């Protein structure tokens, strides 16, 4: 039989249990209070920051990109407003289905979709992402009418870039494009990440790339309070975006177009510089392409067509393609001879019909070059033997040393990227260039080739124009540039670019005058006289022909070799001769003799620049006569 406890005992035990329960309650609440003290007092700063971070979002206000205008204020790169279709991912539950339904109302291509998803991945969840740009008015109307069925889908007016002169400015202005991973890396490296929040485009080439910092502007920010759904509830504060600075170019778009027309469909390049400032008046590379296609990402088909074309339209020949200068190098060789004292202006040389070196004999059949040749005559009629001898007398090291300050074989520092160095040959260069010891040695015969602008010599049209500009300026050299002024978007203040000369090459005035006079006679009496017949101003120049294909002693006959292997045609020149306002270098790929292809282009450009549109038209008629006459007396 069990003994049941006394009721008093039961009561005492019960009270003990109640006390234990109460203690348990107090301990548990103690733990809870400790936990809340930890969260609310100890960790307050941390959670306060997180709550603020939750609450606030900085929405970027993308600045308007700066406008680019030519020397006469014509717009070359501008912005226009267009409608885009955007989706706010935080308000859309099923993205695929939404896009599918949208695509029944407006065209959404596979490409748009891919781009959208790529951008979506990188964007914050409360930021709208565009899926279609450039909606037509009809498309806008169709979407707006069905808006209630698409929460989170909005039509927005956005600014887009446009190059009104498209194909004429592709190699100068370049283009902008969507920011890709590589651009992002660069932005991060430059600590520009904050300024590019919300930016979709960045300069990819040309001035758009090199002046990106000026053109982009400063991104503004709007601080908004957002709720858990990502919807902006109210604006707390905002900082206006600072639009990008405008660029005012030295380039004259009409001159540029005249120059392009003058090429008449041939491939080549032209650089025209104002020698007094280094400002580039025209920079042509043909064929060209339409930069507008690149902004939204070029289609694979168009890209194929451009990159596979044998004419290489994407190549900027004016600054990237280096060609042997041919006889256009001779004025600089003449300067080297005069400045080093190896030649004097009045010094005549006889027996200039042939030149023997290392068992080879070189001939010059031009009648004016046979005997009694001085600096003046050698330039006017482009006598080769005279320059073989001069090169031999100077030696390769002296030639290289003299040419270096003219930026031959070095980047000129023009304000767009993608410039080639070219080759100023010297024994040192050859040692670096070749790996095998037997190829590294410098031969005397190579010096002779350099003397007439062939051999390893290779310069870009920009380098030729730039060097000539320094020469006609008596050694005062400016860095060639396309941008005259940067116009501050806030103050309207014009900030000049490259106003000061870069360096002054020490040249004796008498020597420069000797060479320039001879060059003036080239267009009056010499190899370019046909091209400049009837000009109302005096011009100086020099024709040249760059060998593409070595004939190994055989006579050159344009008719017998295919077009692509024909020589390149050069002309460098300046006008007016007394006080040059324009210096230019023209290269026509596979154009044959410089006097035939390149010089007439130079003439048209000079006519337009010095005389205006009327002068150019007047000159065109004389051109036709000249064309008929040229083929008779090709001169190198």
């Amino acid at each position: 039989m069990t003994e049941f406890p006394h009721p008093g005992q039961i009561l005492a035990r019960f009270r003990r249990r109640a006390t234990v329960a109460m203690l348990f309650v107090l301990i548990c609440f103690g733990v809870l209070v400790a936990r809340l003290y930890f969260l609310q007092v100890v960790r307050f700063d941390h959670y306060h920051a997180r709550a603020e971070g939750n609450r606030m979002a900085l929405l970027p206000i993308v600045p308007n990109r700066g406008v680019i205008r030519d020397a006469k204020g014509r717009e070359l790169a501008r912005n226009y407003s267009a409608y885009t279709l955007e989706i706010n991912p935080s308000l859309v539950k099923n993205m695929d289905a939404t896009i599918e339904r949208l695509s029944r109302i407006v065209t959404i291509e596979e490409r748009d979709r891919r781009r959208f998803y790529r951008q979506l991945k990188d964007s914050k969840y409360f930021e709208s992402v565009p899926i279609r740009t450039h909606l037509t008015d009809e498309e806008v109307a169709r979407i707006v009418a069905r808006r209630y069925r698409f929460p989170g889908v909005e039509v927005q007016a956005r600014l887009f870039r446009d190059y009104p002169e498209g194909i004429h400015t592709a190699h100068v202005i370049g283009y902008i494009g969507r920011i890709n991973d590589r651009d992002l890396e660069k932005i991060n490296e430059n600590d520009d990440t904050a300024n590019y929040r919300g930016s979709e485009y960045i300069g990819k080439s040309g001035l758009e790339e090199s002046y990106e910092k000026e053109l982009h502007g400063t991104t503004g920010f709007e601080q908004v309070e957002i709720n858990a759904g990502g919807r902006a509830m109210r604006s707390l504060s905002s900082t206006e975006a600072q639009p990008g600075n405008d660029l005012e170019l030295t380039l004259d778009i009409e001159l540029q177009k005249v120059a392009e027309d003058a090429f008449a469909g041939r491939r080549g390049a032209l650089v025209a510089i104002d020698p007094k400032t280094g400002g580039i008046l025209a920079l042509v590379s043909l064929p060209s392409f339409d930069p507008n296609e690149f902004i939204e990402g070029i289609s694979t088909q168009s890209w194929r067509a451009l990159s596979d074309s044998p004419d290489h339209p994407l190549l900027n020949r004016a600054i990237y393609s280096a060609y042997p200068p041919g006889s256009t190098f001779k004025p600089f060789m003449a300067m080297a001879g005069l400045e080093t004292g190896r030649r004097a202006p009045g010094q005549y040389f006889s027996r200039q019909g042939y030149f023997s070196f290392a068992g080879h004999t070189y001939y010059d059949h031009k009648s004016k070059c046979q005997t009694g040749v001085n600096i003046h005559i050698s330039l006017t009629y482009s006598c080769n033997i005279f320059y073989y001898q001069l090169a031999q007398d100077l030696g390769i090291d002296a030639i290289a040393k003299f040419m270096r300050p003219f930026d031959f074989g070095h980047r000129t520092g023009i304000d767009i990227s993608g410039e080639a160095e070219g080759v100023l040959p010297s024994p040192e260069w050859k040692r670096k260039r070749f790996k095998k010891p037997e190829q590294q040695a410098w031969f005397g015969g190579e010096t002779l080739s350099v003397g007439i602008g062939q051999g390893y010599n290779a310069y870009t049209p920009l380098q030729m124009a730039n060097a000539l500009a320094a020469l006609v300026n008596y050694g005062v050299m400016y860095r060639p540039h396309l941008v005259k002024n940067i116009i501050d978007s806030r103050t309207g203040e014009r900030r000049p670019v490259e106003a000061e000369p870069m360096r002054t090459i020490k040249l004796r005035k008498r020597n420069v005058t000797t060479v320039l006079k001879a060059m003036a006679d080239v267009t009056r009496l010499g190899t370019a006289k046909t091209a400049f017949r009837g000009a109302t101003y005096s011009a100086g120049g020099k024709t040249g022909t760059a060998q593409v294909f070595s004939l190994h002693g055989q006579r050159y006959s344009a008719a017998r070799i295919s077009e692509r292997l024909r020589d390149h045609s050069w002309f460098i020149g300046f006008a007016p001769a007394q006080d040059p306002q324009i210096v230019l270098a023209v290269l026509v790929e596979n154009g044959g003799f410089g006097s035939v292809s390149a010089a007439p282009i130079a003439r048209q450009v000079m006519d337009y620049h010095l005389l205006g549109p009327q002068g150019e038209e007047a000159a065109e008629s004389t051109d036709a006569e000249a064309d008929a006459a040229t083929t008779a007396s090709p001169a190198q």
Partner: protein
Amino acid sequence: MSPNTLPFSDETRFFTPMAWLRTLVRVTDLWLFGVVLALLAISWTMLVSAGPERVESLQSHIALALSLMLLTAVIPLRHIVRISPMLYLLGVLLLIAVALFGDVSKGARRWLDIGVARIQPSELMKLAVPLALAWYFQQRENALRAHDFLIAFVLLGIPVGLIAMQPDLGTALLVTAAGLYVIFFAGLSWKLIIPAMLLAAGGLLAIIGFGDILCAPEFDWVVLHEYQKQRICTLLDPSQDPLGRGFHVIQSTIAIGSGGMWGKGWLQGTQTHLAFIPERHTDFIFSVLCEEFGFVGVLVLIALYVLLIGRGMTITITATTFAGRLLAGAVTMIFFTYAFVNMGMVSGILPVVGVPLPFISYGGTSLVSLCIAVGLLMNIRHHSRLIAQG
């Protein structure tokens, strides 16, 4: 027990309004009533901030709940105890009906459509189980033997099992707790309690210690549903899924922490008003309080709960009948359990189980049953006093 001492005994006075009023004043415990009113004031204040569109219905909930509280207080306790086995049986039958014909919502079968309304029988069991157990132990008073506890466990196990099968783990745990409190106060041997508690603590530590393995997606917990496993795992590492299941815990922790010492001020909680806090007018209303009134507000609330529970314990100890003691003790501990589990889950020390914050969370059913429980306490107190006087 003299019949004269009961409020219903004198039938001539029973029907006069003055008699009613006098009875009410006599049964009303001012401590409990004051604390409940203070808690309801906080509830109203928080709801204005967290869900102003519901304030009107809260007011009618309060009116109904307070009336039922006073009604419960005046019905003689022995009547209540007498009908409790019937309540219990009804509850179990309804739970079986739910299992057979219940409506499924959110993967669980909890509701029973009885034509006029949809009811959730598991709610009823929160009070019916401790009542039934108190009744049982009352029957066995002074002759309690080991097998009585066994029967008590079976009585508890049937409804808990049915509720857990729905599945509704939160309610099952609360009903279990209510029943265990009765059994504990009835005098279950420490020799059984201590090993059981050690086992539970060990299990808890195992979950925390081996959380990574246990929470791996391929690991099947067998007895728990997938979403229940997720709740526990989310507690162990809320950052694992910050926008999904962990979102509630992370955002409520941010709300609590950013409240600081004094809070952001009434209606100024950014987490609350920008909708970062989920279920902010119901289960997570505590984080709204923490955000807007800070640590000081928390201390005030916890102090009120301590007062409520302390008063409940006083009533428990002074109760004169066995059933009264057991019932008062269990009800008091239920208040504690609700409050602690809710605040614990909102502040991230317990898993998220759907337990409302007593008297504060918006919700008519919960408020009514809590007020009935307070009414029971008042009833027990009044009853004891009468006996003491008698």
